[in-house]
Every structure is written in structure tokens, then in C-alpha cells.
């Protein structure tokens, strides 16, 4: 817990970088999430809808941001998580999911970290951006 006691604004959370987005992953996420929108898995449908190819579910990237948080703190420490979907993620893109502490807030008996969350591709294009509020583990008395 030492790392949390000295935590300051600017600290980076360990990055989560899954394998490049594949059609298999989109098919698995379609089934597992229950989001059966064909735009994410059926190329024929996507073309008929005027897009070149299927693209990833925004919520798949948000799930990866969840991994960034739960690898850093126990899940019950997450008070909130909010994202804005900025751009479509395409098949073959390698997405880097990260977090950075914006500020550490001390209020009453609690210490909270406000964390900026981002998903970007290898060119640095922003796909998702958001924020989480994390209850930091208390130091031992």
C-alpha cells in the first residue's frame, strides 16, 4: 500500500494493451456482451450501411479501461467511471489503455484519486477519454 500513500497527481497507472482488434474478438464480445448490433460483426451489413468494414464496440474499449483500474486497485474501490466515445476503433488497430492521476483529494476520512482514462491507437489518435474516481486504500494505523 506504500505506493498509494505517496501517490501524487501525474502518476501513471500500468497500461493495458490487448492484442490488435480482430474479427474473432468482436464476435466474442458480441456474444458475451449481448450487444448483437450487426455493424460490429457482419461486414455485408456494415457495407450496406455505408461503412467500409465492421468496427469495435465502444464498450469493449471501456471494458479494457476497467481492467486498467482493477489491476491497480480492488474493484470495490472504484467509485465512478465515465467515458466519452471519441472515435471508432477499426479491425487491426492496437489500442493502448491507460490512466493518469489528475489529483488526490482528501475529504473527511477518505483519500480519493481522480484518474484520467484514455484509449489511443498506435498513432496516438484518441478513441475514448474519461475519468474515474478511486477510493485509495487507507494506510495502516
Amino acid at each position, binding site marked *: 500500500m506504500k505506493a498509494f500513500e505517496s501517490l501524487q497527481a501525474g502518476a501513471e497507472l500500468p497500461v493495458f494493451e490487448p492484442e490488435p482488434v480482430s474479427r474473432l474478438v468482436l464476435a*466474442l464480445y458480441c456474444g*458475451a*456482451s449481448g450487444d448483437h448490433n450487426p455493424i460490429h460483426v457482419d461486414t455485408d451489413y456494415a457495407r450496406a450501411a455505408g461503412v467500409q468494414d465492421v468496427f469495435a464496440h465502444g464498450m469493449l474499449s471501456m471494458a479494457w479501461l*476497467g481492467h486498467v483500474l482493477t489491476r491497480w486497485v480492488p474493484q470495490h474501490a472504484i*467509485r465512478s467511471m465515465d467515458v466519452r466515445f471519441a472515435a471508432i476503433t477499426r479491425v487491426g488497430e492496437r489500442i493502448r489503455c491507460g490512466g493518469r492521476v489528475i489529483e488526490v483529494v482528501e475529504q473527511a476520512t477518505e483519500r480519493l484519486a481522480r484518474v484520467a482514462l484514455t484509449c489511443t491507437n498506435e498513432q496516438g489518435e484518441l478513441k475514448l477519454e474519461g475519468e474515474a474516481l478511486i477510493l485509495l486504500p487507507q494506510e495502516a494505523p
Partner: protein
Amino acid sequence: MIDKRFIGHALEPFSVAVEPGRLRFFAKATSQPDPVYADEAAAHAAGHRGLPVPPTFLFCLEMDGPNPAAVRELLGLDYRFLLHGEQGFRYHAMAYAGDVLTFAPRIENIWDKKGGMLEFVARVTRVSNQAGAHVADLRFVTVVRHPIGASA
């Protein structure tokens, strides 16, 4: 334009059971690195009473409700012009495999930008468990794009 009298409208609540197989499937689909989310023994060893529902899976459970198109139908939204603009979660308690969660959605707000070219609908859903405990609030923002020349 979407009728703003629907601001505050409550949709029919519904309950969804959290199945462990779905959680394991979700862990696989999202490249979950932590065995706690797919292996009961690891979950128990970490002090959980079952496989935990990961942070964003509540959104998927809400989609498992009897009519995931309820808001679209209520507001008369054309599926082709919709985008998922934002998603938020406020957490109050953990949920686990075996829980039965109740989802109570309502239309929190309806607004527009760019002279009505873009319209926004925010749905907020209160989630509680079988013991009545408040688990989370989900906030889903849909963006409705009105192509130039199309009648809204």
C-alpha cells in the same frame, strides 16, 4: 425534434440474473488478465462471495432486459442515426454471479446542439440487488445525428 416532455419518464423496471458462464465468456472476450473474474476458486481466495460482475458488465446486463429498444420506441428514434456518445457508472456495492439485479431506467434529460442537428438523450438506470441494496447507477447517452436535409 425529440419530445422533451419525456424528460423524467420512468421505464418499466426489470430483473436479470447474473450467470457465471456469461461472466467467464465476458472475461475471455475482453482479454481479462485477472483470474478472479473467471475462476471461482480465485474469486473466493480473494475474498469474493462469487465471480464478481466486472465494472462495465452492468451495461450488458441492462441490455439483457425484456426490451432493449424501449427508449428508441418510446422516443421514435431511428436506429441508423444513433451513436453511443457517453457511458457512465456510479458504484455503490459489488455484484456477483448468482445475484438477481433489478434495473429501473428513466429518461434523465433530452437536449440538442448545433441548431437541432444533434440531439442527445441521457438514460439513467438505478441498479439494485435481490436484498434491495443499491448497486450502481448507469448513465447512457445516445446521440441522434440528423443528416442535413432529412426531416427530424
